[in-house]
């Protein structure tokens, strides 16, 4: 019973990510080891988490497009597999369908949450900051609580039945699932290629493959080489873009700004809960208001003013959480101007928000999902697959180091420099170089993934009698890891042909099963 509760808490923690700044603490790479810890087998948990991470690699949240719920699926899959003493293949076999089911429940919740919008409007109308904040938090807690309940019920009611069911699975199915499980990462990699791979940068993919396959370099080294190449190619060191430091001016210009450094920092902390009340109708609107509500409270003294400001920020809003603080900073500065000057047009605040949210999402989604997540997961998973706990730890650090630093800085830059910063940015070549450079790093790491992170071999032998030669031996001389690479390209090819993801998933499963039954793959 205690175990069930602890595992439920892990799932709840994963879903609490919406309050924790979308810091990827919810990924299987992180939650797997926690489940392992509770069940007394950390190493298994690390390995299962890493394997799930690979399969869900290309599974990312862009805009309002919701991917399978890998939190619920991953936690339950890992837990059932360890509890019944089965291997990674079972964890996979369970996690994939559960994730897809759980995603449907989540979609339902995101539709349902819109019901609260009326309430938010009422509170805004009344200028009731307390109730407004409370509802944002309560509605945000619905997701972790609901999914936690589901996980608990599944464990409580299903664990025994699941064990009986899993014990009935014959050996050949287990073997097939194992081979299929080894093939599934090809889909994750292909999904990444789908958004990153094109003729202009294709050679960096192959460079990544060669470095990993022939030179046997670890993922960290390949990422490092990628960064150096990117710096050289974009001549990064030769350009100087100075973003005169945000924090310096924040408390220096007392006459200009009435917000203290602490209050600006408060925007950053509050922005971590930006996505807590995400819903399909207005997306992150209450999260935006929640993030600067303390600023509004300070700036506006009358109930009418507070009410007007709250209502203003209830408009549709959706952007990348990682770059959100820049917009929040700009909005805070504009609110301040509005509070101070009589003839300021408050409509312009929303105009700027609307103008910025798309572009900021475009930049930060590409940088964070397209590069940083890929590098962090590549490095983390490559270590974790060997059962090394450093893997998940590095994953969190590589991703959140830059994330939190930038998110913090951008709050001050937005507040003190606002649109001037953007103008300077658009005048420089920095953005172009940054996106191009990061695509090089990302693609090199993806290129290294098939040979480093996938293991699909063939037991086929050629010839008869004494003169048999193992096909795998020949392939290894040609290019180690060629089978994973070809599988990845095959999946990518079908993806390009608009074949559905679920169909590809099934296809790889069938290929794995058949390959295992006919002894083509092990």
């Amino acid at each position: 019973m205690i175990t069930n509760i602890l595992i439920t808490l892990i799932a709840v923690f994963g879903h609490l990510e919406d309050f924790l700044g979308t810091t990827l603490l919810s990924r299987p790479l992180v939650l797997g080891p926690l489940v392992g810890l509770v069940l007394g087998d950390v190493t298994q948990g690390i390995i299962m988490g890493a394997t799930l991470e690979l399969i869900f690699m290309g599974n990312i949240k862009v805009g309002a497009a919701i991917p399978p719920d890998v939190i619920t699926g991953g936690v339950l899959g890992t837990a059932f597999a360890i509890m019944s003493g089965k291997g990674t293949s079972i964890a996979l076999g369970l996690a994939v369908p559960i994730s897809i089911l759980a995603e449907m429940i989540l979609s339902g919740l995101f539709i349902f949450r819109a019901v609260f919008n009326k309430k938010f409007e009422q509170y805004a109308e009344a200028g009731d900051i307390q109730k407004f904040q409370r509802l944002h938090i309560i509605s945000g807690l619905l997701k972790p609580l609901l999914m936690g309940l589901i996980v608990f019920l599944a464990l409580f009611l299903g664990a025994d039945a699941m064990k009986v069911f899993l014990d009935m699975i014959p050996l050949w199915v287990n073997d097939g699932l194992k081979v299929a499980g080894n093939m599934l990462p090809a889909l994750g990699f292909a999904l990444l290629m789908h958004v990153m791979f094109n003729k202009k940068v294709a050679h960096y993919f192959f460079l990544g493959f060669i470095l990993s396959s022939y030179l046997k370099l670890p993922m960290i080294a390949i990422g490092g080489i990628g960064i150096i190449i990117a710096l050289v190619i974009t001549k990064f060191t030769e350009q100087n873009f100075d973003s005169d430091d945000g924090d310096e001016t924040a408390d220096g210009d007392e006459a200009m700004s009435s917000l203290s450094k602490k209050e600006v920092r408060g925007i950053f902390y509050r922005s971590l809960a930006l996505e807590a009340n995400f819903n399909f109708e207005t997306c992150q609107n209450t999260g935006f208001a929640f993030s600067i509500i303390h600023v509004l409270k300070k700036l506006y003294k009358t109930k009418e003013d507070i009410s007007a400001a709250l209502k203003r920020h209830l408009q549709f809003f959706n952007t990348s959480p990682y770059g959100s603080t820049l917009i929040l900073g700009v909005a805070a500065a504009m609110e301040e101007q509005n509070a101070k000057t009589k003839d300021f047009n408050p409509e312009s605040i929303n105009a700027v928000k609307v103008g910025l949210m798309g572009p900021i999402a475009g930049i930060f989604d590409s940088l964070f999902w397209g590069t940083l997540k890929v590098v962090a997961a590549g490095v983390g998973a490559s270590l974790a697959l060997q059962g090394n706990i450093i893997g998940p730890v590095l994953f969190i650090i590589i991703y959140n180091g830059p994330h939190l630093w930038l998110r913090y800085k951008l709050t001050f830059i937005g507040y003190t420099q606002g649109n001037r910063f953007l103008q300077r940015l658009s005048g420089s070549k920095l953005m172009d170089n940054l996106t191009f450079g990061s695509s090089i790093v990302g693609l090199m790491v993806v290129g290294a993934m098939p040979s480093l992170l996938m293991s699909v071999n063939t037991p086929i032998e050629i010839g008869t009698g004494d003169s048999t030669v193992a096909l795998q031996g020949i392939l290894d001389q040609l290019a180690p890891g060629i089978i994973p690479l070809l599988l990845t390209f095959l999946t990518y090819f079908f993806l390009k042909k608009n074949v559905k993801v679920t169909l590809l998933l099934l296809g790889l499963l069938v290929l794995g099963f058949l390959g295992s039954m006919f002894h083509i793959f092990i």
Partner: protein
Amino acid sequence: MIKLTRIDDRLVHGQVAFTWVPSLGVDCLLVANDKVAQDDFQKMTLGLAKPAGVKLVIRSLEESIQFLNDEKNKSLKVLILINSVTDASVLVNGVTEIKSINFGGIRSGEGKRLISKSVAISEEDSTLIHTLLEKGVELEVRQVPTDKKQMIETLL
């Protein structure tokens, strides 16, 4: 060649820059919008969001129609971005090449109803949609390229 005509009221953002552009392999983003074409601030921010190696063209609707019908531009692989059903029907009337329209995102508001996770339409939109359907234009809802195409007539 027009690769995709997309209604998305955030115009260039994550889904566009990060999923559609690479997936379609386009080399030109055309933002067709009367208001944005006049607005230097928006032009600047859209320029920032533009993916590397892609040309960004921001024009009014009328100029966009000229741009798309210009023989010189036929070699470009274009992704057209517009932000309303009204603008979509203007483009369809002006450019015969547009046979299909992707509904990416239209936020909800007064008098609108959600017909999918990310698309809300008004009564007026609904009328325009019926006219477009009668003309034989394909109207499909997808946020990202790997989504399943949902035909709009099944959602109304």
